[in-house]
């Protein structure tokens, strides 16, 4: 397959208030590939994903998205290219009902959205369409958050621990969705501790260790 590097990280160094998380990281992410990122708790996986998506900006080094510096995009522009699923689904869900959550964007912009009913069906939550988001179970919230991530037809998806809280059936369904989209040329960066997900979907596995990033496994 012809690999296109969609996200390019050059010489990334970043520190939080009290410690250095990354030191001179170079990393490329491709369309049509499922890149897995593993690492210990607190090693900076979520932080790295926030840097890629443009939420964190105060690093040194360069991050490119589609050939252009991430810091030159607005968050809304990035959102149209890259779907991001937060580690904590509560951060992503802010509408009263499931349906409202899926149709939120239509109230403000005209954009070629994926059919939300189809997405709800894929994630097995169509029967919850009129339910209150507040009372959803943890796994249902996760699936709703995942479904919203796919709304804007992104070319690339960054998923932070997408399987946590999901039962066996819904996990397998998620693997199927990921694999079929990857085969259509969509790229993935998936942060996870779930080795089953790694084995089912991963094309290449990286690990954050000692403030650097290295290949853990090539599949």
């Amino acid at each position: 397959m012809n690999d296109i590097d969609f996200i390019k990280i050059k010489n990334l160094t970043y520190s939080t208030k009290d410690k250095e998380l990354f030191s001179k990281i170079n990393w490329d992410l491709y369309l049509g590939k499922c890149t897995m990122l593993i690492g210990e708790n607190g090693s900076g996986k979520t932080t790295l994903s926030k840097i890629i998506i443009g939420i964190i900006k105060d690093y040194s080094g360069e991050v490119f998205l589609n050939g252009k510096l991430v810091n030159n995009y607005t968050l809304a522009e990035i959102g149209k290219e890259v779907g991001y699923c937060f580690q904590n689904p509560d951060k992503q869900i802010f509408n009263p009902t499931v349906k409202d959550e899926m149709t939120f964007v239509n109230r403000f912009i005209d954009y070629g959205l994926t059919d939300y009913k189809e997405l709800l069906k894929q994630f097995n939550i169509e029967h919850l369409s009129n339910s209150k988001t507040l009372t959803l179970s943890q796994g249902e919230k996760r699936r709703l958050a995942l479904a919203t991530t796919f709304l804007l037809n992104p070319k690339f998806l960054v998923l932070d621990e997408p399987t946590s809280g999901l039962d066996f059936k819904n996990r397998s369904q998620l693997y199927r969705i990921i694999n079929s989209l990857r085969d259509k040329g969509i790229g993935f960066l998936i942060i996870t501790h779930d080795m089953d997900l790694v084995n089912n979907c991963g094309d290449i596995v990286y690990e954050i260790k000692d403030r650097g990033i290295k290949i853990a496994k090539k599949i």
Partner: protein
Amino acid sequence: MQKKYDPRIKLFIVLVMSSLVIIFLDIRLQILVFFTQLFFAIFFKARIREMFFKLRKFMIIFLFLIIVQSVFDRQGNAIISIFNFTLITDQGIIRGVSYLIRLFVVLVSGAIIVTSSQKETIQGLVKLKVPYDLALMSSVGIRFLPLLIEQMQDTLIAIQLRGIEINSLRLADKVKVYSYIFAPVIISTLEKAKSLSLSIEMRAFRIYKDRTSLIELSFSREDYVLLFVNIALLVIFIYFGNII
């Protein structure tokens, strides 16, 4: 090591300044109170810069508040009018700004209080004969403030990542978007409060009527000086308030 001031002094200052800013109707006095309090905040090394920096995204809401305030105030001389209808008056703008100053005084108050640890603040309130339950509640409330701001920022990010360019929305839509930011904030706060009260009950809170505390509070010389300065300020302010 940095000198630690008694939490009661901070409570007293906050109480005095926020009462004054509400009692005073003259905007000049309100501004004076605000700067006095700002001075105290800097003195206690409160992190006001950080707080206002975090709030910068919400300035539009404050601006909106001013405008609403001004529009509904019919007194004073017209500044903007459409045909014969007066839209904004000088009095209205002054009224709006004065609301903003009051809001800021409350926010800075929070910043001053959190320079003491939660335990110290509770103990301070208890020593002032505030019932322990109330003391706990109010100090927990103040602690929630940064959490609220965090939650609002997260929602703002989530909305933008859905492809919505907030800056280029029409004003009506902008207000609508901001209304979406408040709902989850309120809900998640209520949720957190609920689980907090549950965990408090689980630890058998209030099983004994009187509580002992590890923290001993005592006024140092510096605290007395501050107290004196504050009372003097209070007298001066009230005196000025009467002659203006």
